[in-house]
């Protein structure tokens, strides 16, 4: 028994385990310190949680694009954040034109609907072009190759947007119809956040239904299991892949508009990079390849990112903890990939696949 233990003992595992335990202890210490200090009221925590949920539903919509593409092509579509950016950045001009002409105040819902249409179309077109130009010719290349083109495409798209639309920061107009707060469970929550959360959840449920129930959804699942057999079954694999990219683009476009409603400022050519990385984190957190996993991972990441800096880092006595918010999300990504690469819902990938 003891001999077998020593035969299987590995220093790498041992040190990684120590590292893991250390992090858990630090988290618990921070948590206890913050709670016992009692610096924030319940209402403040609720504000953080709802803001986190709204941000998280935006991450979740982007994450669905990552997870769909990864499920089918085993490719990290590094440029997906840029797909999101293109929709959001193009729509900002429509939104501002509508605000200037007064159309937004007269028909707020109609004009928000038009934003969704424009952002969805632009993002879908970009996603499909991306697939056609940068990924399809490399379908059978070694796996490092499409990853590098994805990085290249990410830069090319960012600076294309910069060349087209300029480098200035732009912002969405405020929608008066969505101002104000409503009371949920006794807490005052801004209407915008509720609308964003509800609409995003409807989209996610719709997508899950689409993948589970429709014929195209079935062929998507089939292609993600085995491309060659799917082809034998009469499925047009290229078409399914294009549809997958298109759906991812559509959701990313919607996320862009939600982001504009929830956080109107800071719309510029680089805006997609960090949400893209974080959405990837969310997809990994939920288990990349799993559609409900990405949705829940996104919501979870939003809450963690919004609550944890105050909850844990301040408890550990780190000054201005909110500066480290982004570092927190990335640390989480690193920790998940190291300790539980299959995520919450993911299948356990064989090592070769991962």
């Amino acid at each position, binding site marked *: 028994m003891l001999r077998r233990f020593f035969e299987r003992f590995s*220093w*790498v595992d041992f*040190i*990684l385990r120590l*590292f893991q335990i250390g992090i858990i202890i630090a988290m618990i210490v921070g948590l206890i310190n913050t709670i016992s200090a009692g610096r924030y009221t319940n209402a403040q925590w609720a504000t953080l949680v709802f803001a986190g949920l709204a941000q998280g539903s935006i991450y979740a919509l982007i994450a669905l694009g990552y997870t769909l593409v990864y499920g089918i092509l085993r*490719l*990290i579509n590094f440029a997906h954040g840029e797909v999101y950016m293109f929709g959001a950045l193009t729509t900002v*001009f429509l939104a501002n*034109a509508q605000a*200037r002409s007064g159309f937004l105040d007269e028909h707020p819902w109609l004009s928000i609907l038009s934003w969704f249409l424009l952002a969805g179309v632009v993002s879908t077109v970009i996603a499909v072009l991306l697939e056609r*130009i*940068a990924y399809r*010719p*490399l379908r059978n*290349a070694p*796996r*490092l*190759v*499409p*990853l*590098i*083109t994805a*990085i*290249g*495409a*990410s*830069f*090319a*798209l*960012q*600076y*294309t947007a*910069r*060349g*087209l*639309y*300029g480098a200035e920061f732009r912002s969405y107009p405020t929608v008066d119809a969505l101002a104000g707060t409503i009371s949920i469970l006794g807490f005052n929550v801004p209407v915008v956040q509720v609308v964003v959360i509800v609409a995003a959840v409807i989209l996610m449920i719709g997508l899950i239904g689409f993948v589970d129930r429709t014929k195209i959804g079935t062929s998507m699942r089939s292609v993600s299991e085995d491309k060659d057999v799917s082809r034998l079954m009469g499925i047009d694999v290229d078409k399914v892949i294009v549809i997958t990219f298109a759906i991812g683009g559509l959701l990313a476009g919607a996320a862009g508009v939600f982001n504009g409603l929830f956080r109107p400022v800071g719309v510029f050519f680089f805006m997609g990079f960090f949400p893209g*990385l974080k959405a*990837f984190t969310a997809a*990994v957190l939920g288990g990349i390849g799993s559609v409900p996993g990405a949705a829940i991972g996104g919501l979870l990441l939003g809450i963690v990112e919004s609550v944890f800096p105050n909850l844990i880092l301040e408890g550990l006595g*780190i*000054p*201005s903890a909110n*500066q*480290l918010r*982004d*570092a927190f999300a*990335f*640390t989480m*990504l*690193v920790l998940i*990939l*190291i300790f539980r*690469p299959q995520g919450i819902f993911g299948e356990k990938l064989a*090592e070769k696949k*991962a």
Partner: protein
Amino acid sequence: MIQNRAPEPISRIVTKYGLIGSLIALYVSALGMVESFSLRPVVGDFLTLGYVILAAGPVGAGILTARALRDRTSRRSAIGASFGAGAVSSSLLLVLLVVIVIFVIRPDEAGAEVTLQVMFVNLNSGLAEILTFGLGNLLGALMLILFCTIMGGAGGAAVLVRDPLRAGLVTGVILTILVGIFSDTVSQVLQQVSGRVIINIVFVQKSLRPIPAVLVFALGFSMAYFRVPRRSKARWQQVPDTRQKSAKRGFFIAGLLLLIMLPWLTGLFLSQALFLIGLYIIMGLGLNIVVGYAGLLDLGYVAFFAFGAYAMGILTTTSELGITNLTFWSALPICVAAGVLWGLLLGFPVLRLRGDYLAIVTLGFGEIVRILALSDWLGPIQGGPQGILHIPNPVIFGVTLNTPQTMYYVVLLGVILAAFVTIRLRDARLGRQWMSMREDEDVSEAMGINLVSTKLLAFAIGAGFSALAGAILAARQSTIFPHSFNLIISINVLAGIIVGGLGSIPGVIVGMVILVGLPELLREFTEYRFLMYGILLIVVMLVRPEGFLPEATRKRELHSDEPGMAPAEAAPLESVGAGGQE
């Protein structure tokens, strides 16, 4: 899937490639490249870089059409078709012109608020004027069609004309354009050598005068047209071994002398570019070990660069952040050691990750380091967002190295050291282990390779090189800010080694000269630098995944059907350096 399709009709080929060319031309125009590049004249004051860029679309259309039709029709009708493709490629530009005239210029005149320029910032009357050659709308549009048609035909001719003439024409045109574009560089070198007289004869305000341009074209043309068919390689192999060795040594020494002379030949401004290129070569050689040899895609490489720079800053600065006040030379080894240590520490948690997961985690590490460097939390140690000031320049024999020309030598030393270490490691047991691990981890482990130590050594040595570069940068700039260490540097280095050819040392050098040197020389490029990187990465991966100067084995892998690839063929510099122990 297999079916006997009738060959595509010629008209369809012409339309298809014409539209592709048109899209390219539209893209460069709408992005503002045509307009901002037209500030740099190439020949006289009529041919600007803007037109060269604009011509890329039609020329490309002509080339593609001519290639598609080369084996199908007669030469004459193929050239005709490429003229046609050129004409088609003007179509979207005409649409763009109409759009600019109607939606941009008119509303301004009418005083209306909404113009398209609010959205597409580069669609302005300046662009319209360039596209119409300043001839007014109607005549200009006709001129534009003519221009595109001729360029399409030229592209076709570049494929279809018979060879000595073709090579001559193509070389002549490319040489003329290059001399025109790099007139700054050429004239700086000329000035160091011969003073201002020649410059005034050849150039007028950064642009080639027309008559020298014809001479340059003639030079390029005759170089290619009258070139003796090359058999130098075969002849080289007949030279006896001892003479080969001494000749190699001679070349080596001559090259070294040239490298030492370089900053004094090129002047102050170019020395700064050389300095930067050298810095990136050091980093590229380090990342080449991690990605090229060991096959571990590391996107957080900038973290080690930052560690090196901050270590140098903290160890030597005279401000209150300094802790030791060491000199540059005594701090340098400590910085490198710190980099190696961090490489080990950060390499450890990712030992079990592979492929794209590894890429994302290292990217996360890079971002975490940057965010931490920016935060107030670590401010008391490394200055937070204010960075570290007053880092002394290196001093050697009482001379302070504070100019780009003198700092160049420090970088040169670093490059030589890094190249030497890389070559020795590559040919050693460790290098073979890395490459075996790159090909297949499981098989390597079964062959008795200790994956843990092999991977960690790759991370650590790569990190050491990067820290060396960071330390040199800190000493050159005297100040470091956390904003300088962002992801773009990692991408920069990665793009350089991939474009040059993964795993190949001359490839790293060529890649960095292209990716770091060119934007320094072409200030107009800087705004479009990252766009170029992005497009270059995609194009290189699609067209030539092994890079410009690939490592011999990788080239063989990717083109296994082409026999007779001699290993030394692609690596002249390597064989000079490694000549002694082979």
